């Protein structure tokens, strides 16, 4: 089993490295963009954006599961998903901003897609603020799960209504269309997506394992300390 784990990690590492190298070496500069070299960033940007939404879904799912089963493991999973979602949201926003800077000369354009990612970051941030405010573990899990399940439909609504709001508030439509992408770009992009998803799953499992171990350690500590504190025998 261990060899599979090690082999898997090595494979992911090699894959990501290969795709990244290909993005710079093999891929031709993108035609039709103001700064064709920088446009390569789209290969990294889109997978991050997709994964942050996936993470949100995963978080909502495990939040719902926690409320049904009250199993602490599902809470760890929801938390891990939120952490990764935040990470990918930051990466997506950063890469998107860099691209916007090169392409349109300004770092922020109220593009509905970019805006929804920032809104998602707000939700993640609120989620972590809430978790930080509650000491007691089961209460923390319960309340953050409830919040996630309220934020989820709200975000769905937001993503749905944003295009019609933004278009009318800001008439200049700077929407980035992906349909005209060169096939080489498409291959590289989806390859990176596959690799990044593997990284996501790996980091997710690691994070959950760490939290489970911490919890078990805490329980052992309690079990050892308790008889000492109450003066009981054996």
């Amino acid at each position, binding site marked *: 089993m261990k060899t599979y784990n090690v082999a898997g990690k090595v494979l992911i590492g090699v894959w990501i490295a290969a795709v990244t190298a290909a993005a710079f070496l093999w891929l031709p500069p993108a035609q039709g963009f103001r700064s064709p070299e920088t446009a390569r960033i789209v290969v990294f940007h889109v997978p991050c954006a997709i994964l942050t939404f996936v993470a949100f879904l995963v978080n909502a799912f495990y939040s719902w599961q926690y409320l049904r089963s009250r199993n602490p493991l599902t809470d760890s999973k929801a938390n891990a998903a939120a952490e990764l979602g935040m990470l990918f949201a930051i990466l997506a926003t950063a890469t998107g901003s860099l691209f916007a800077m090169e392409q349109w000369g300004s770092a922020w354009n109220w593009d509905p897609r970019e805006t929804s990612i920032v809104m998602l970051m707000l939700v993640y941030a609120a989620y972590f603020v809430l978790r930080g405010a509650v000491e007691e*573990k089961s209460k923390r899990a319960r309340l953050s799960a409830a919040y996630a399940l309220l934020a989820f439909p709200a975000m769905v609504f937001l993503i749905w209504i944003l295009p019609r709001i933004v278009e009318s508030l800001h008439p200049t439509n700077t929407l980035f269309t992906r349909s005209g992408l060169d096939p080489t770009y498409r291959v590289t992009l989806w390859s990176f997506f596959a690799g990044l998803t593997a990284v996501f799953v790996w980091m997710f499992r690691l994070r959950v394992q760490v939290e489970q171990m911490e919890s078990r350690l*805490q329980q052992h500590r*309690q079990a050892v300390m308790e008889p000492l504190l109450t003066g009981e025998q054996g």
Partner: protein
Amino acid sequence: MSWQIELRQVGKCFNDRPVLRGVSATVTAPGAWTILGPNGSGKSTLLKLIAGLLTPSEGEIVYLYNGARLTAQRRRQVVGMVAPDIALYRPLTALENLRFFARARGMAVQDNELMRLLQQVDLRARAHDPVSTFSTGMVQRLKLLTALVHRPPVLLLDEPGSNLDEVGRCLIREIVEEQAKHGIALIATNDTREMDYGKPLIQLGI
């Protein structure tokens, strides 16, 4: 035709630290019982678990009427509880408090009926005064009233006699005796004067 409360291996943890563990007992109406133990032994927690204010981390607490399990909604209707850390609405008057707790339970009581109840605990004269002006003894009497207004089969009392004078304690004793004739009374206490209110059911702590 009987009410029963069963505690099956009930445990409660806060942050992985157990406050209660493996508590089991059964009470069948009619009667009064006491839950004893020093401060910090988990008496209040246990009473809150029985009331349904907390959910057990392990085990379960089951209410049975003629052998049939009660739903959470039904349990709310059959329980009345008085505890030091459960407060009344202080800016409201005694009558307004009583009226709320009665109406919220769907009782279509008239004010004159509520006034009669206030009379029984000697609070009629202060019916229109806000609870914030009451002494602790008066507050306790009003709490008892709000817990009994819907005539619950199950009465839970957490240290009922604290802050009460002799007259107040007599009132508690009367209430417990009346309740024990047809229903269940559970009293959590570490006061020696209250220990004979009922049969000892559970002893918590070392």
